[in-house]
């Protein structure tokens, strides 16, 4: 459907990922006994900043974003998950499978909630701006990264603000298809009573109506020359109030709506209820097979992402920082074992030897990235290295 969804998915999911990682890095930084036991080493503030900066630098890599902003269909869930796996590991921080699964669940359910609840389709842009504002705050002390983020911000405004309400509705409908049948329960939503125990979100029938909408309840009848001849009230069954003012679509300003702002804090930690996915979802969840997960564009994106990104392997594995999205290591292990099979993302494993056609294409794309690199003995060996790296995803 809409060919304008991918940048919004990437920025909003990326924004949610940063909120969660920031909160976990801060939490693990607290030198309580519990935290000490649960983590490899105590985090220091410098490490947190480094991780955030590294991930944001990678997210807003110029070449990658150029690719991202080209009109294209939304990728499969698998391909997108692979991108975020990669992004999460763009720094010295490491997440194991269970923590990565949980991180991705939290990100996707948060963005699904925001897309579903945004008052008007166009407000998806304000949700995105809330994420962008927060990302800028994360890197406010690093001007080089900040200007990188601002460039994308300007691009977002240029591309998206002229779109009609119908195009935004198409974007929203495309996103809702992407998130369809995901009913993972998130404890922060359950506690706030915005999610039901079956995983469905609560839709209020009260509060302000969207900007540009009148509260329901009035019928006006007009004569042939446009004069009002009759005015009737009806009981609308809800409890709506007048619309709030419209949020700012400028680079700076009050977005008015709160969706997309950081809902986590040290006192509101990150948690998920994984085992408790509803019966309905576990019975009917189907792997989203559209579009083709090995489509050229998807490989292209992965390749571009990698082109802009050096894999940082901690020189000494013992000194690598590991972040745990669970309270303890035991819980994390348990989560990996007990995760329902249908919730497994099955991250794409690109086999360097299997699909020759896709491979040739990928190698070609990879080739484009070797140009600016230092001369290598043979271009094919460089390609092989990159393919091998993708195998390891």
């Amino acid at each position, binding site marked *: 459907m809409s060919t304008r969804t991918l940048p919004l998915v990437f920025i909003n999911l990326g924004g949610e990922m940063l909120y969660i990682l920031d909160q976990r890095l801060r939490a693990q930084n607290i030198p309580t006994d519990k935290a000490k036991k649960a983590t490899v080493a105590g985090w220091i503030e410098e490490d947190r900043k480094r991780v955030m900066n590294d991930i944001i630098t990678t997210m807003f890599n110029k070449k990658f974003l150029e690719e991202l902003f080209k009109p294209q269909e939304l990728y499969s869930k698998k391909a997108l998950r692979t991108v975020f796996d990669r992004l999460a590991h763009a720094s010295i921080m490491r997440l194991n499978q269970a923590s990565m699964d949980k991180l991705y669940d939290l990100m996707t359910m948060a963005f699904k909630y925001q897309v579903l609840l945004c008052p008007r389709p166009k407000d998806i842009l304000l949700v995105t701006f809330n994420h962008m504002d927060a990302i800028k705050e994360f890197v406010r002390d690093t001007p080089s990264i900040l200007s990188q983020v601002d460039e994308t911000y300007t691009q977002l405004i240029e591309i998206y603000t002229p779109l009609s309400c119908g195009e935004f509705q198409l974007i929203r409908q495309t996103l809702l298809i992407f998130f369809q049948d995901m009913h993972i329960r998130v404890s922060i939503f359950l506690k706030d009573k915005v999610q039901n125990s079956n995983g469905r979100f609560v*839709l209020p029938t009260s509060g302000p109506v969207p900007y540009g909408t009148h509260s329901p309840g009035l019928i006006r009848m007009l004569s042939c020359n446009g004069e009002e001849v009759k005015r009737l009230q009806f009981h609308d069954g809800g409890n709506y109030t007048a619309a709030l003012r419209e949020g700012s679509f400028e680079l700076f300003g009050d977005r008015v709506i709160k969706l997309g702002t950081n809902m986590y804090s040290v006192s509101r930690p990150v948690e998920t209820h994984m085992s408790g996915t509803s019966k309905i979802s576990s019975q009917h969840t189907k792997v989203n097979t559209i579009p083709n997960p090995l489509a050229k564009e998807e490989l292209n994106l992965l390749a571009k992402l990698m082109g802009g990104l050096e894999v940082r392997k901690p020189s000494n594995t013992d000194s690598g920082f590991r972040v745990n999205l669970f309270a303890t290591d035991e819980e994390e292990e348990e989560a990996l074992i007990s995760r329902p099979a249908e919730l497994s993302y099955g991250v794409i494993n690109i086999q360097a030897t299997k699909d020759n056609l896709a491979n040739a294409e990928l190698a070609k794309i990879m080739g484009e990235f070797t140009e600016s690199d230092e001369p290598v003995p043979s271009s094919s060996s460089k390609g092989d290295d990159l393919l091998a790296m993708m195998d390891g995803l």
Partner: protein
Amino acid sequence: MAKMYHREKSIQLKSSASALYNNLSVLRLAPRSLTHFAVVHANVVNLVSASWDGLNYSHRQLQSKEGNVATSSSLIMQAAWCVLPSRDLLVVASQKGIQMYESDGSIMVYWHALDTPETPTAKAIFARGIAAVREKYICVGVSSGAVLVFDVPSKGSNITLSEVLEEHTEAVTDMASECSGSMEYIADLVSADDSGLLCVWKSGGDFQLLNKIPGFDMSCSSVKLWKGTVIAAYGTGQIRLYEGVTGILHAEVNAHARWIYSLDIAPFTGLLLSAAEDSFVRVWHLNPAPESNSVEIEHLYNECVTDTQICGAKFCDGDGFAFAVTGYDLIEIIRYTQA
């Protein structure tokens, strides 16, 4: 308010409904005491046929396979039955084109591909808005704003694209033909688009544009035509009643708190059904007032489908005795009948 309708046993679907305008079509087959339902899930159409005694259900799923393309299947925008005097066809509008099936979905009789460029363009390409008009026409809207008119023979697969109507400049959202069954009204068809523009047409060898009713930069997501009156629903939650031929605005209703996704009319009684993202289904009554040459609307009933963004709502019969509702992420069709 007395409870006008009560909830009945739901019909289970094979997969959940997607958030698309008018995402429910109902075909009532009186001779066989059957009702068919069609609901779109991403790239699949869920077809359910239910016997009137509520004892038998049969399911079928259609994939949007397009001709020769072996790659990823395309997303479907709408599926609707078109009832012509000689035959009923199921029409499926997708990103790649338009498919027409026999009414039970068993055989594809026609396929029309949309012109899709190799690299995706900024403007999405799709078909949306389906209506059967008079004796032999099926009209389908396109994202370019074009309305394709297909000439359908009384049997066989010799369906031809007879005309392309180019009055809309924004993506077509919905289309409806005169549903009263009476021949006394001049207008046969109304088409709506993302800017809210409504085009009123007279069918024939050449379709004739009778009137253009301007929009106000807000999508008209669902439209109906009944006894010459255009009933249009918008993203603002408003419903407007226009006289089709003149464009005179008879009534304006602040009907819903969010985007309206579906309208339907029970042609014999003038009951109007509206349903929106705000989780409400409302029933209205339209009353032609010949003395003032206008039409009046009164509100009759609300139903709140808790925590459901409704995407489809249709009466199941011509009197509005029963209606059915679908919602985003919902894996059932909810039914209501008059108490």
